[in-house]
């Protein structure tokens, strides 16, 4: 074979504008998957360090002054955490819906409308996220 030239970015993400629905679904699914894995481990780390520190004294627990409660209350008082929670919901909902879509694809059902089911999962994710905003943001200000 003669020499060849590496065309660099055109080989991969340089042509992201031309990606089709199935490709975007794959990228979003990977991305949301990694975010969920990251969240899971953060979640485990935060809670597992907070629980042993919780006071066993019923009076402290009743007053809501134990370390576990104060940790959660402090976190929830931060606007950034509230926003991140909305983001987490969006990520989880998309991953669930696209996961159902992939289940159908694996079963060979409706492969002709795989792009429509991707758009549907995007729209549903958007709707659910928007609907959740009042619940998550309430009392944050």
């Amino acid at each position, binding site marked *: *074979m*003669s*020499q*060849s*030239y590496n*065309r660099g970015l*055109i*080989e*991969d993400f340089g*042509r992201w*504008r*031309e990606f*089709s*629905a*199935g*490709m975007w*679904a*794959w990228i979003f699914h990977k991305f949301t998957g990694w975010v969920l894995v990251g969240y899971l481990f953060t979640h485990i780390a935060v809670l597992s360090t907070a629980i042993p520190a919780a006071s066993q004294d019923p009076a402290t627990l009743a007053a809501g002054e134990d370390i576990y409660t104060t940790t959660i209350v402090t976190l929830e008082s931060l606007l950034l955490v509230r926003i991140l929670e909305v983001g987490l919901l969006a990520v989880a909902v998309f991953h669930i819906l696209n996961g159902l879509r*992939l289940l159908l*694809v*694996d*079963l*060979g059902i409706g*492969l*002709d409308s*795989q*792009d429509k089911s991707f758009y549907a999962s995007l729209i549903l994710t958007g709707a659910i996220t928007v609907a959740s905003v009042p619940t998550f943001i309430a009392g944050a200000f």
Partner: protein
Amino acid sequence: MSTQPPQQETDESTAETSAEPETESTSPGQQKRAAQKRERANASAQRQAEADAKAKADEETREIKVFRYDPEVEEKQEPRFDTFHVPFTKGMTVLDAVMYARDHYDPSLTFRHSCRQAICGSDAFFVNGRQRLGCKTQVSELDEPIRIEPLPHQDVVKDLVVDMDHFYEEMESVDPYFDPDETPGNDLEEQRQSRANREKVKMSTRCIWCAACFSSCNIAAGDNQYLGPAALNKAYRFAMDEREGESRKQERLETIEQEHGVWRCQTQFSCTNVCPKDIPLTEHIQELKREAVKKNLKFW
């Protein structure tokens, strides 16, 4: 023609006479020849400019930008895009456009083509960001300027020609030929296929080995050993053919269920989207996955 050339002539002749006393080493004849050469260059540049202007003014041309690269010529080792204005005719395909550019503007423009009717599978290009068959893509359906590049994820040999060796190796690795367990005693006897079975493999038989799907597949790009959509489709075509028999089918399933086989497919649907013969590649790969699972599942 314009009146420009005669004027230039007088300009140059005056310049010539004024320069004469200083440069005695060059003979008047040489100078004259040099002047004529310059004049010719000017005239041809002007002609080119006029042709360009005319091409732009003329609505019935299409602008194509073609990827150029030639490792054998030093000046062409750095890839570039060449722009051609091709006269548009009704029904013109991308292949027609590059053929016109080659025949009328630049004979060194290199690309593969043969049948011009989407049968030979030679002319898959990357047109406006998508793998398409040049002879099956109407110029009228594309936005201008039309960018024509060689297939991504394959090494470029020259201009639009890519190295297909790896693709052919993948295709050969699934034994892409009919190979039944038992052949009829009489060699001349037909091996008949049921209509239903024919319908099942019909779409998969349409593959023309153009490598558009292989080029569009992200997984094939990252994993050199991945069989790729075209080869898996070939495997499907024969694994699903009932005439081959059960033991051959098991062998075929063993080939495709290996580490770099069907399970690498991440259902991005890129191959299905670009296939010029509308083969539902992802569907076939998914079915092979299910067949592979069924083969290995044992409930006792």
